[in-house]
């Protein structure tokens, strides 16, 4: 990969959710909306309007570009805040806290960018769940950092090679907007299928 090719932060989240989905979105560039993604998009349209404001002692900046040269990351933040000279990223999500930790990876990747951009270490981040109006604390632990860095490497490899990860069925497939394209159960169905004479 040449130095101008950055990894979209959003791809990390998708990769952690399902490598095959990540491939469809970022390598094959397919995208089909379903109910969940449409709700998510309109939420982000509201969030992604550049602006800054103050809330008590907190400086809030919305919708700015995040970038890390070290990790070759690029993305857009929903919201970053500065309070008591500490920076932290806040990622907006539709619905309730998911069963998967992919959102935390995304916050961690934003934190890595923010550290590089501000020169200060970032130790916490938040995920804001629109459905419950609750913020959930994400501790940017060493473990989460390592896991984010490993995911960055995997995504980098995926984008470079374009090799399609296998579509494997799991509980996650039920809410996935790609279900009807990737048909994760079909390989098994075809294997069992006996054609009529």
């Amino acid at each position: 990969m040449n130095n101008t090719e950055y990894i979209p932060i959003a791809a990390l989240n998708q990769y952690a959710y399902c490598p095959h989905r990540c491939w469809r979105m970022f390598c094959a560039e397919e995208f089909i909306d379903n109910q969940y993604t449409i709700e998510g998009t309109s939420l982000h349209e509201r969030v992604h309007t550049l602006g800054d404001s103050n809330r008590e002692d907190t400086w809030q900046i919305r919708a700015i570009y995040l970038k890390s040269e070290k990790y070759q990351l690029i993305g857009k933040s929903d919201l970053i805040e500065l309070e008591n000279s500490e920076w932290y990223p806040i990622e907006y999500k539709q619905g309730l806290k998911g069963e998967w930790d992919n959102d935390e990876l995304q916050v961690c990747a934003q934190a890595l960018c923010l550290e590089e951009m501000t020169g200060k270490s970032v130790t916490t981040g938040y995920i804001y769940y629109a459905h419950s109006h609750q913020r959930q604390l994400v501790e940017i632990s060493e473990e989460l950092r390592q896991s984010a860095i490993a995911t960055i490497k995997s995504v980098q490899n995926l984008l470079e090679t374009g090799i399609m990860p296998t579509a494997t069925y799991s509980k996650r497939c039920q809410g996935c907007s790609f279900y009807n394209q990737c048909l994760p159960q079909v390989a098994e169905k075809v294997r069992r299928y006996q054609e009529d004479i």
Partner: protein
Amino acid sequence: MGTVYITQEDAFIGKVDERLNVKYEKKTILDVPLIKIDGLVVMGRASISPATIAELVNYKIPLTFLTNKGKYIARLEPEMSKNIFLRSAQWKAMGESTQAIHVSKGFVRGKLKNYRQSLLQAQRRYTELNLSAGITQLESAIANLAQATSIDSIRGLEGAGSAAYFSCFNQLIRVENFQFHTRNRRPPTDPVNSLLSLGYALLRHDVQGAINIVGFDPYLGYLHTERYGRPSLALDLMEEFRPVIVDAVVLAAINRRILVPTDFITEPVSNAVSLTKEGLHKFLRLYQEKKQTKFKHPVMQKQYTYQESFEIQARLLAKYLMGEIEKYPPLVMK
């Protein structure tokens, strides 16, 4: 969800907000939300506004132009899918590759098995028919298919099987005033052939729509490769659907006396036969109803409409070519 067919000569196809609005002599004759449309077919002389074309592209609704007799003219597609991996797999398999032979056998096997199935059903229903010779010939073509080692020999078996089926086709017509002798086209010169040709043109629009959605290059086929500029892959994937959808609709239209001889007109000199406007409406309605009919997909083991099954077969083909599944299962009806 469905395909909208515009058959009114001189109709004006426009859009109002996010709705398709069709006018004739300044009166609205159709007004449907674009979100409910998954294909637009314009038959004959109608005009369409540039804003509507832009909106169709935006909604990824394919637009097909046919003559008023159903002959294919042109097609407008939304931007090509960026899935270069699938197209690359499709091109790598071209020619006499193992994969090309496998899928070609699948298309032909699906078609011939479905031909056989409809003859068997007719034989059970009408014991006085004599379809056994045709059924036997189809069975031998199906059996020989397994041993075929070249695309040409698959084409040969496809030809033999189709000939066997069409030699029985007249017996499937249960009314006095229609007859079928042999398949003829360009132009079809009898009512039955004109219905078959029209039905296959409509089916091609639908199948091509499905293969475009999946991201194939429609012009690279395996079984149909002989002529430049034909959507060969659509013609390939159509094979298994021909008897199930088009032939079934044609026979239903005739045998249920929905179409009668006065629904057809014959051109002088050329003897080209086509439907009257009223006949065309009746036939389009039947075709549309058939596509919306649900059935249990033998591989997926779930209810789908025939319309949905076009895309499923295209996805199965994609998965086979991409190496995700071991075989291509054609749609074989029980």
